């Protein structure tokens, strides 16, 4: 992994749909559904099979996973955060509950919305999935690197920490 990437590409590279221009973004948005959630309302339920991907437009949500000691909150998501991205790609059941912790708003690319986008604007649909794949693989590389660094640290305590 090149470490000479500038900070300019850092923002560009990690944000979903950052490469699309204004007109394309408006077109993609046109194909999404938008929902309001009252505080406490569940947007995604653990175990459900549904491939929608969510973008938080306002408010915040908590991610809660089942654990032997009871449900555990593992993250808080706020506007601009994405969830449901893994199921969008692999179709596996949802791995956690996502619940609004205040009155919130999200827009959603459902499988049906995506089908319509794909039929009407194949180029944008392709950008959408490639970009989703790209940010996920980037996350995967980051955690691999972290894991590698930790492994190194464990083998050689004198190695510099990441």
């Amino acid at each position: 992994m090149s470490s000479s990437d500038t900070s300019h590409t850092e923002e560009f590279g990690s944000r979903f749909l950052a490469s699309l221009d204004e007109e394309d973004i408006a077109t993609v948005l046109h194909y999404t559904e938008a929902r309001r959630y009252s505080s406490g309302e569940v947007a995604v339920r653990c175990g459900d099979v549904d491939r929608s991907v969510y973008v938080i437009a306002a408010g915040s949500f908590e991610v809660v996973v089942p654990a032997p000691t009871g449900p555990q909150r593992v993250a808080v998501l706020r506007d601009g955060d994405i969830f449901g991205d893994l199921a969008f790609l692999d179709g596996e059941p949802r791995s956690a509950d996502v619940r609004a912790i205040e009155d919130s708003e999200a827009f959603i690319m459902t499988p049906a919305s995506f089908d319509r986008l794909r039929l009407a604007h194949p180029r944008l649909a392709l950008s959408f999935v490639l970009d989703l794949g790209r940010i996920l693989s980037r996350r995967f590389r980051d955690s691999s690197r972290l894991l590698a660094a930790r492994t190194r640290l464990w083998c050689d305590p004198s190695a510099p920490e990441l």
Partner: protein
Amino acid sequence: MQASDGPRVAESVLRAYARVRPTMAEIRFVSGPTVLARPGDSLLRIAEANQVPLESGCQMGVCGADPVRILAGAQNLTPPSMDERVTLRRLALAPDCRMACAARVRGDVTVALAREGVTPNTSVCADAPVAERRHSSSRQRVVIIGSGVAGVTAAIEVRERDPDIDIAILGAEPYDYYNRMVINKLLPGSAAIDRLPLLPSDWAASRRIRHLCGVAARSIDRVRCEVQTDGGDTLPYERLLLATGAACDVPAIEEYSKQGAFVMRAIDDAVRLRQYIVEQRCRRAVVVGGGLLGLEAASSIRAMGIRVSVIETAAWPLSRQLDRTAGALVQQLMTDLGIKILSGAVPRALVGADRVEEVQLADGQRLTADFVLFATGIEPNVTLARRAGLAIDHGVIVNDRMATSDARIFAAGDVAAYRGSIPGLWRVAMEQARVAAINMLGGDSRYDARVPPTRLKVPGIDVLSVGDVTGADGHVQDICVDDDDPRQYRKLVVRAGKASAAIVVGHQALHELVSEAVMANRDVTAVIPALERGDWTVLRGECGG
């Protein structure tokens, strides 16, 4: 717990959302989601996209499959058309109800499903004042054979016009009056049998109509004016309505009787096919017939993950509804959905050892298929009428009053042939049933044989056809708009200055007003320049709905 370091969307996307957000309307479904919708969306589309359990039907406000109650913001919906008002009255729904498919949003609305907790107001007939009842002398009896859309519409119309008359309706199918238009959705499970009934289960009893469900008529004695049922009952009549409908017509094809050949007409057909698909683990299918039913069924089969091809003998699909250009476009749109259409192809034989494995075409081509679905038109159920000696030409011959060759017997729907034509459409059956009901009670109503609007109900493709789009009969001017988007098409056929037929592919927001203008045969002479420019909102016209 800190904020997540998970994936985030670009700021430009949030800014774009903030720009469109003020234009969106808030649609709150009671005991369901709150949706932010774009103006012009129908409540049905919004509900379907957000998992609100609502069944679709004709999508023109006519069949009554999707009633909703508007608890607030009724003024923020497009006003009901004449068609929708007729439907709401027929279903005897509360005054705050709308048909979801025909109500488009313009602002915030609060919606409840009409079937949750709202009992339809079925007391309309029972409460009719006794003193005003007309038939005080001999009691009249109307018998209706068939409990599909024609039979049920006629029964309700007769009761609305005469609170006193005896009405009996018999239907061979063991189900209550249901939404035949969406049975193909039972295949992927996107429709449920228990949501198919179009009327509350007490629709007959509450109107004092005797409903013999699951009972077929065995014979008609025209001399004694009696119907014998297969249950051994005898039903005397003064007026009789034949609404026996039609069965699927299957083309002459070798080895049709093989296992794996199906039709799609009744609930049980869909259930049988679904079972076969699951048990045989079907992967590939062929649909014979590229009409509305064939394409809609193909879309449902595709939704089950099955590769499906459609064989159409005409040069393009929906050849009864579309011209060549629109037909070619729909063929392309279906291909994009993963459904291959072979136009101008003629099936010759089903091939396979003990069940269907291939369909052989006349040109020798062979298509692999684990099953074949025939959607090749209808064959009117005329056995009863023929045995009773009524005049028949394919269907039971009727005049424009829907009377058969026996003045006491009327016919309506898919069994009736008017001027040699059996359109096989829901809306035609309703209109004929209404005409027959009026005339059976001694009134005088005439059937207007105009071609009603039809819509293709395939998710992702919006197609409307209304009026006779094929006929060329002088004084015809076609207004075709060249849309920039190659996935859209529209054509208005103007005859003698009047809107006489139309085809619209895409442009969903125009569907209602185009249908209305054509059905009202509106004079468009003054707005032709605007129409040619592509501004079709002028069709809304001065009639004001």
